């Protein structure tokens, strides 16, 4: 019995040592991650906006649209875990079909925007960005007011 207890004890220690590598995200981690994704999106969108309004040169146009398209995909995934808190309203999960539809739309349109930036440059991006960056449409319904 003592040997068995020692074995179990040793196993628990080994498990604890390995745990940090495979740790499950707690609620704070889930919220922090989605906030990081949204911060990246916000800063990249602001950068793209500055190019569109000719405040800065357009050298980085394609990169900003590509980063936005990638982060749009990351954003959808980051809200899959139903963890209330942060700036997200409970409606994200209560009206999840609508939220997901809006996210899918955002993913699809930012993907098109990134492709357009490569082929058509600033003029085409300016035409499409209002339709692609529908941030406010989602924030008005699903984000707590700042």
């Amino acid at each position, binding site marked *: 019995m003592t040997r068995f207890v020692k074995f179990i004890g040793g196993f628990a220690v080994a498990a604890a040592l390995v745990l*940090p*590598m*495979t*740790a*499950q*995200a*707690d609620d704070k*981690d*889930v919220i*922090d*991650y989605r906030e*990081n*994704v949204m*911060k*990246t999106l916000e*800063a*990249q969108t*602001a*950068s793209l906006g*500055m190019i569109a309004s*000719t*405040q*800065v*040169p*357009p*050298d*980085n146009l394609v*990169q*900003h649209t*590509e*980063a936005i398209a*990638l*982060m749009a*995909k*990351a954003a959808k*995934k*980051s809200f*899959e*875990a139903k963890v209330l808190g942060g700036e997200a309203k409970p409606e994200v999960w209560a009206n999840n079909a609508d939220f997901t539809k809006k996210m899918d739309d955002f993913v699809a349109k930012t993907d098109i925007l990134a492709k357009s930036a490569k082929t058509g440059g600033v003029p085409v991006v300016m035409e499409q960005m209002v339709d692609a960056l529908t941030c406010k449409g989602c924030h008005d319904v699903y984000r707590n007011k700042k």
Partner: protein
Amino acid sequence: MTRLLQFAAGLAFAAVATLPATVHATDSTDVIDYRKNVMKSLSAASAGLNAILQGKAPAENLVLQAETLRIIATTALIAFEPNVEGGDSKPEVWAKWADFSAKMKAFEAGTADLAKAAKEGGVAAAQGKVQAALTCKGCHDVYRVPKK
């Protein structure tokens, strides 16, 4: 002479009227705001990637996150090219431009390597590259005004 003045004034007006469509980055605030946006997104994207590597965020996003970081890293040096002091940047950025730009290019190469590892080998491979790629502190210690 009056006609010439009128013509010159008209020309000047026309130039100003068409300026917003063609002018770029003449305002120092815009230059500083732009590079701050780039650095903010780098900071958030790095934090997101680290969360994945620590098992705190979905591993499914690893490639997206690493690729985003790689892409944004390629925009940083351009953002600092205009010699506009201010924001969190020390004057040394431009005084030691050769060193600064070498560090930025190393950062670009490191994040490209990291993104490739993430695509080919997943979390384990990315963990092996992250320290060499995210050398943020090495640059910030020299070129960024310490935060209060």
